[in-house]
């Protein structure tokens, strides 16, 4: 090898070595994946409701009712108080506590409450916060007689729901029902949470199917107190009950016209049940709306009072029909199933809830034109007598799914169902009032 050759070989080796030297290893690209959330319904919002500031049994009752109301609404999931980490000295107003203390247990909403005596009355305050945003959503105060702690809690629940959802809630309403607690079927009224029960009839007879008027001041119902199924009206503000129809045969299945100037009910003048309207005060018949062989029963008014849905057997088995309020233009609404009863017209006027027999009895809804039937309950006991919430988003009905008959609440899609009443059962014929001022 010549000297020149050796130099060339050395230079070549150096060049190869330089270019072949492993540099710093290139880091592989980290994988990024995309997730999407927000496709489910808005339910079970985690809410923290720390103990009510105040003392005594009234505070405990107030807090218990408030938490129960929020659970019934289906909007919220109450975070277990054991998970709360906020120090005891924290206050209820902005700046008096740290939002981070409420992010730790996973709260999305925080509701802080105060209850205090005020000259013989109870005064409740509620402060509602958006924990994620660290902002106040609103605050409100209520005052009521000391005996009305339950009503204060209901108003508080309505306020929280209104602030979080922008939807009007329903805890200022009540449910009338037939209760069989002592061997007799009497009419009762209760709060939406099943508490605050008041007995309306005490005649130790059979009293059935109470129906609220639009203002919530009166109930019509059928009673066998005089031996015949007659129609009565209870004036809840005057605590007076009077009989308004005692015609031969049945006087049942009443429904108030929205204006309160007439009641539709079923009579059986010639043995065949027909729907008529009567004056709720004088009891005189205003008009006969149906004239068909076979039963025509269970009238329910549309919210504008222009139409009436009812049950008729004119096509064979019992089916839901709708007609004009003067009895003309009857059209069949339900075509699915062979036994559909108990219609209830929604407050928005677009749907009718009813009971269909499909093995057992279940609650369904259908558009007024007969389309869009959907099921609310399925395969769990007998579910009967559906009645709408004022906002049309919920139904109450009686159900035997736990054995005895209780009042249940369900969202109209059937996803959220909760038992409202407790004890040994005997709750039937529930009917939901409108918003009440009393």
């Amino acid at each position, binding site marked *: 090898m010549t000297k020149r050759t050796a130099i060339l070989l050395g230079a070549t080796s150096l060049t190869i070595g330089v270019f072949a030297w492993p540099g710093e290893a290139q880091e592989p690209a980290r994988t990024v994946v*995309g997730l999407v959330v927000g496709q489910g319904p808005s339910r079970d919002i985690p809410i923290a409701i720390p103990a009510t500031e105040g003392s005594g049994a009234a505070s405990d009752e107030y807090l218990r009712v408030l938490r129960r109301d929020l659970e019934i609404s289906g909007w919220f999931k109450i975070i277990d108080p054991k998970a709360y980490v906020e120090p005891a000295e924290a206050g209820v107003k902005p700046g008096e506590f740290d939002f981070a203390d409420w992010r730790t247990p996973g709260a999305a909403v925080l509701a802080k409450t105060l209850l205090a005596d005020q000259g013989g009355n109870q005064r409740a305050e509620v402060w509602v916060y958006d924990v994620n945003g660290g902002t106040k959503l609103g605050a409100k105060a209520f005052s009521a007689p000391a005996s009305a702690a339950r009503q204060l809690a209901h108003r508080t629940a309505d306020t929280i729901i209104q602030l979080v959802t922008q939807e009007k809630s329903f805890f200022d309403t009540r449910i009338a029902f037939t209760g069989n607690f002592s061997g007799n079927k009497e009419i009762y009224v209760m709060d939406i949470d099943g508490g605050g029960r008041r007995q309306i009839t005490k005649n130790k007879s059979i009293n059935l199917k109470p129906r609220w008027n639009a203002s919530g001041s009166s109930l019509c119902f059928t009673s066998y107190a005089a031996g015949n199924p007659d129609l009565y009206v209870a004036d809840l503000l005057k605590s007076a009950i009077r009989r308004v129809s005692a015609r031969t045969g049945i006087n049942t299945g009443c429904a108030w016209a929205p204006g309160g100037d007439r009641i539709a009910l079923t009579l059986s003048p010639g043995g065949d049940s027909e729907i008529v309207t009567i004056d709720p005060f004088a009891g005189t018949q205003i008009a006969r709306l149906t004239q068909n062989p076979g039963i025509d029963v269970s009238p329910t008014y549309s919210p504008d009072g222009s139409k009436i849905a009812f049950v008729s057997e004119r096509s064979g088995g019992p089916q839901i029909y709708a007609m004009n309020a003067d009895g003309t233009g009857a059209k069949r609404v339900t075509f*699915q199933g062979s036994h559909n009863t108990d219609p209830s017209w929604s407050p928005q006027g677009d749907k009718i809830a009813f009971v269909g027999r499909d093995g057992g009895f279940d609650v369904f809804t259908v558009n007024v034109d007969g389309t869009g039937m959907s099921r609310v309950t399925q395969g769990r006991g007998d579910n009967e007598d559906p009645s709408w919430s004022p906002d049309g988003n919920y139904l109450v009905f009686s159900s035997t799914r736990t054995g005895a008959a209780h009042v249940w609440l369900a969202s*109209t899609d059937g996803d959220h169902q909760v038992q409202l009443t407790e004890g040994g059962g005997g709750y039937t014929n529930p009917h939901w009032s409108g918003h009440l001022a009393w």
Partner: protein
Amino acid sequence: MAGFRPRHPLPSWEWPAAFVAHGFVFLTVAVARCGDDGALFKQPEPIMVELVAASQASRMPQRAERAPDVHRGTQDPDAAKPPPNPSELSLPTEPTRGTQSGTRSSLLDELRREELLKDLSAEVGETDRAASSGQTTEGAGNISRAGVRDPALSKWVQAAQAVVDKNFHPLPALCAANRSLLAEATVSVLPDGTIDGDASVSKSSGTGTFDGACRQAFANTGRLPPTPPTHPDGLDAVLTCVCPK
């Protein structure tokens, strides 16, 4: 014996009378026949007999194939609907929600949101979000084409999405006001599913409350499923938050 004698010899006027009477009858029949273009007593049409292949005995159609029942009584023919049998009264697969107001703006909002959801929830794989639209996030060029190419990753994405979705709670009032809200938060996921550190908002909805709910969804989740074996070093996850239905 008396000779044969006619018992009642016809009077001379009876012969013309009988002749006229018979003539009248024949004339009447003739006129009647002229008015009829066919025979008085038509032969019945011959019964057309066509030989057809005798069909095999078949069972009665199933309930679903039956024609609608004919209902007794009066009813509006427009209202006639096929009567499915009771077993068809089943729970809807899609929960029915209250209808939104029919205003144009709300409908447009809803359309936009549906479009976003359709795109965002597209099958992870060849047609995943980054591929199916121009909408990307920072670093979207690295978003994995899972699914067809990586079934394990696709499965992980679905499982992680389900877990985080349960912890996403924007205020309904916020979404009622603007259903088109959209935010993105990013985190690093360790191989065992632990979320490494706090989530950072990589794309704001313009509303702190909504962004906070998006970020908090990861915080409340705590831990995701362990990353698939194909990604032993963990992953980065971009969470896109939209208003629930």
